[in-house]
């Protein structure tokens, strides 16, 4: 029954405050960053062959005799080569599939393949490590365009002879190409390279697939170095758009810190999906590398059993901190705060405090000020990072207590509402507030943007189950 499955939470607009960079909002210059490298050289551009066009075309030997029809093209990733070389062809001979190595190829034309020798040994298809079937595993599948920072689905792949070998040189993502493939057969071989992305900009994925004989599993790992140059927000966009297997590969290619930073920028529902489908150990590792306030938000979204399991597998220190934060309702100060807190005692020198800040470099987004405590551990002041750094220039050896201002330090209790925190922030004209317990000891910090997140209902982003 076309019941409006609508009850669907998925169709509910979600808050999109988490520093969402909607694709639509991405500055145009980023899209233009896409470069044409090999394809820019005219010789190559003129001789490119469309994979979609040549599939199913006759494969002939030197005497012009048809041996079979082209079924697929085998290429090898890896080897540190930007443009993957073609290593062989899969030919359909009658009802059987046979493999010929690339060395026997004379020429791949737009509508036919010529083989070099008159006599051929057709062997069974065996896929070796690092090899992929371009038509089966890459064409119409997801790829990441690293320069354009987008997930694409290859509408066509282009081959060309470069440095003496036939190689994969680009992926096509235009609508015109899809129409060409849908149209009559004679349209198909003509390349329509209006929106070709040079292969140098692409991070491919090796799907975990059975090889043709169904025995071995191939898992490919080549990481585009450009991925490491992307900002966390950009990686988050890519992670949101990829499907499960591809997402796993991308995560595996990132360092734990890169991955954690990207996760912090993801939409809550996409992040929830990512954590639920990861194995609990990996989810635990990712969450403990995230900033505590973000990790707690993510944990809150998970169903109870998953949350418990993940917490059990975390390093004890992170688990304790996160459990404590989870104890506060999410609309109270305790639920909004981060436990990342740099503290100093009144006797510490400015240099010492700066050293401590340097140690916390990994949490830079959460560093706004240094909480100063007395010998009993009670908060006596909150000095902004800026004043500490300026003091370092003039008086590096003075005590931090000399930087304390006379006025009372502004704090909130963990059970204060987000509204109260907002009022306090406005009064104090600060970017963050210290959260203190009943004895006046600092337990966390609330940043202005987190208060905003908690207060503004915001315009929703429609979340719809991914159809693709």
């Amino acid at each position: 029954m076309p019941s409006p499955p609508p009850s669907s939470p998925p169709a509910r607009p979600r808050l999109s405050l988490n520093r969402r960079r909607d694709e639509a909002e991405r500055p145009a210059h980023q899209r233009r960053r896409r470069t044409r490298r090999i394809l820019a050289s005219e010789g190559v551009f003129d001789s490119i062959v469309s994979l979609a066009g040549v599939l199913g075309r006759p494969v002939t030997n030197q005497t012009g005799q048809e041996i079979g029809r082209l079924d697929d093209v085998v290429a090898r990733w890896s080897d540190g080569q930007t443009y993957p070389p073609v290593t062989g062809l899969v030919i359909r001979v009658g009802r059987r599939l046979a493999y010929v190595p690339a060395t026997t190829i004379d020429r791949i034309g737009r509508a036919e393949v010529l083989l070099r020798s008159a006599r051929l040994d057709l062997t069974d298809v065996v896929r070796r490590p690092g090899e992929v079937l371009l038509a089966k595993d890459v064409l119409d599948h997801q790829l990441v365009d690293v320069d354009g920072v987008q997930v694409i689905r290859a509408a066509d792949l282009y081959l060309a002879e470069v440095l003496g070998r036939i190689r994969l040189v680009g992926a096509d993502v235009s609508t015109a190409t899809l129409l060409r493939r849908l149209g009559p057969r004679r349209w198909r071989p003509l390349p329509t390279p209006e929106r070709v992305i040079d292969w140098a900009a692409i991070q491919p994925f090796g799907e975990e697939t059975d090889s043709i004989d169904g025995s071995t599993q191939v898992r490919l790992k080549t990481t585009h170095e450009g991925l490491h140059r992307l900002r966390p927000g950009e990686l988050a966009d890519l992670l949101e758009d990829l499907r499960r297997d591809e997402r796993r590969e991308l995560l595996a290619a990132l360092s734990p810190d890169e991955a954690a930073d990207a996760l912090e920028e993801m939409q809550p529902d996409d992040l929830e999906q990512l954590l639920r489908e990861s194995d609990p150990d990996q989810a635990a590792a990712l969450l403990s590398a995230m900033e505590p306030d973000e990790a707690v938000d993510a944990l809150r979204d998970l169903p109870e059993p998953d949350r418990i399991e993940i917490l059990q597998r975390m390093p004890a220190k992170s688990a304790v901190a996160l459990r404590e934060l989870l104890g506060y309702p999410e609309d109270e100060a305790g639920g909004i705060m981060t436990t990342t807190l740099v503290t100093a005692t009144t006797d510490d020198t400015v240099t010492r405090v700066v050293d401590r800040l340097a140690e916390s470099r990994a949490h830079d987004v959460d560093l706004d000020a240094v909480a100063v405590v007395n010998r009993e551990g009670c908060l006596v002041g909150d000095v902004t990072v800026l004043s500490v750094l300026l003091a370092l220039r003039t008086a590096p050896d003075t005590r931090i207590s000399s930087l304390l201002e006379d006025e009372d330090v502004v704090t909130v209790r963990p059970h204060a509402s987000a509204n109260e925190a907002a009022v306090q922030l406005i009064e104090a004209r600060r970017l963050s507030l210290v959260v203190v317990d009943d004895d006046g000891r600092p337990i966390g910090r609330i940043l202005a943007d987190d208060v905003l997140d908690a207060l503004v209902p915001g315009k929703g982003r429609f979340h719809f189950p991914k159809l693709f």
Partner: protein
Amino acid sequence: MRLPTRRTTLVYLAAAGPGLVAAAAGNDAGGVVTYASAGAQFVYRTLFLMVLITIAYVVVQEMVARLAVYTGKGLAALIREEFSLRVAAFAVTAFAIANIGLMVTEFGGIATAFDLFGVSRYLSVPIFAVAIWSLVLFGSYSYAERIFLLLTVVFIAYPIAAVLAHPDWSQVAANTLWPHFVASRSFLLLSIALIGTTITPYIQLYEAGAVVDKGVKSEDYRFQRVDAIVGAMMAAFVAMSIIVATGATIGGTGPLTSASHAAHALRPVAGAAAEVLFGLGLLGASALAAAVVPLSTSYAVAEAIGVERSVSSSFRQAPIFLGLFTAQILVGAAVVLVPGNLITLIINTQVLEGVITPMTLILILVLANRRSLLGAAANGPWARWVGGISIVSVAAVASVFVVLTVLGWFGIG
């Protein structure tokens, strides 16, 4: 799917499983009207057919859930990756046509509901078209959604109504268990409508998407399987109770012609308030689907050709996505504004669904049979046969209808 920390039990139920959603939310306008019409026209005679449809529906929903869990991909993505581009394009086009049909149904449901309250469709349909369009694009749809969702709970009254109407249970049982068909053109037409409204292509796409979104691991598939099967069976149970409730109250009075006629079936529960109750349920279900259906088409088409897709983009950034979304609402509303009987219009669009459904079903069957895709989780011999037979028989009914219709154009038969 996010587990909310607040909100109603019904939403919790929804979060519990996409499969259950179908049953909990009740039927949409097309479903309620078609089932009611079946009861009014053929009393309990369609019940055996409903058993066959239920088997096919359960089998298909299970396969869809399995594909989603084991591949982590939605149905449309699988079709694009596993079949040729032409097949994929054909499937997306068929899906889009089916969904435009659904839009007509949903606006038909809105118009019918307001008819019951004495409001002209020339007022209610344009207002709702604009309201749904702007609520989705400008963001505060979530509140409206909860209200609509709550309204659909009304349809849970049907099983109670079925019991209170004191149907002849021996007749009900005989018609359910004893294989039979009625050899008439109107019965065939209604059969297609029943198939189309129960196994709508959009539900399969939706189920796959929702299961993928939940991030279910393959080790946990058995829970998802229970959810899919129980959900499908509950949906079928509600459907059959609508047929029984209507059959017992207004059975044999000929084809359904008006909503107030259909609302009679709720009299045993609601008495004089039956019309209001029926109208509210119809409105909730229709308005809900009227927002989700066009979005699902837009996402499917936009992703298929790889263009910008987001409800928060501008028309210049995402012309295809937003254009399609808008066009579907316009077409749905416009067709409903053409003078004519709304009930007949709704049933005819279900026939359209019924003709398209078998195509999606066959693609799903082929995918679920593929070992290269699902490995050990692919259909075993048992599932292959049961799935194959039920899907092929549903497809056969639809094909017979298409052939007869085409022959009819040429004056044969």
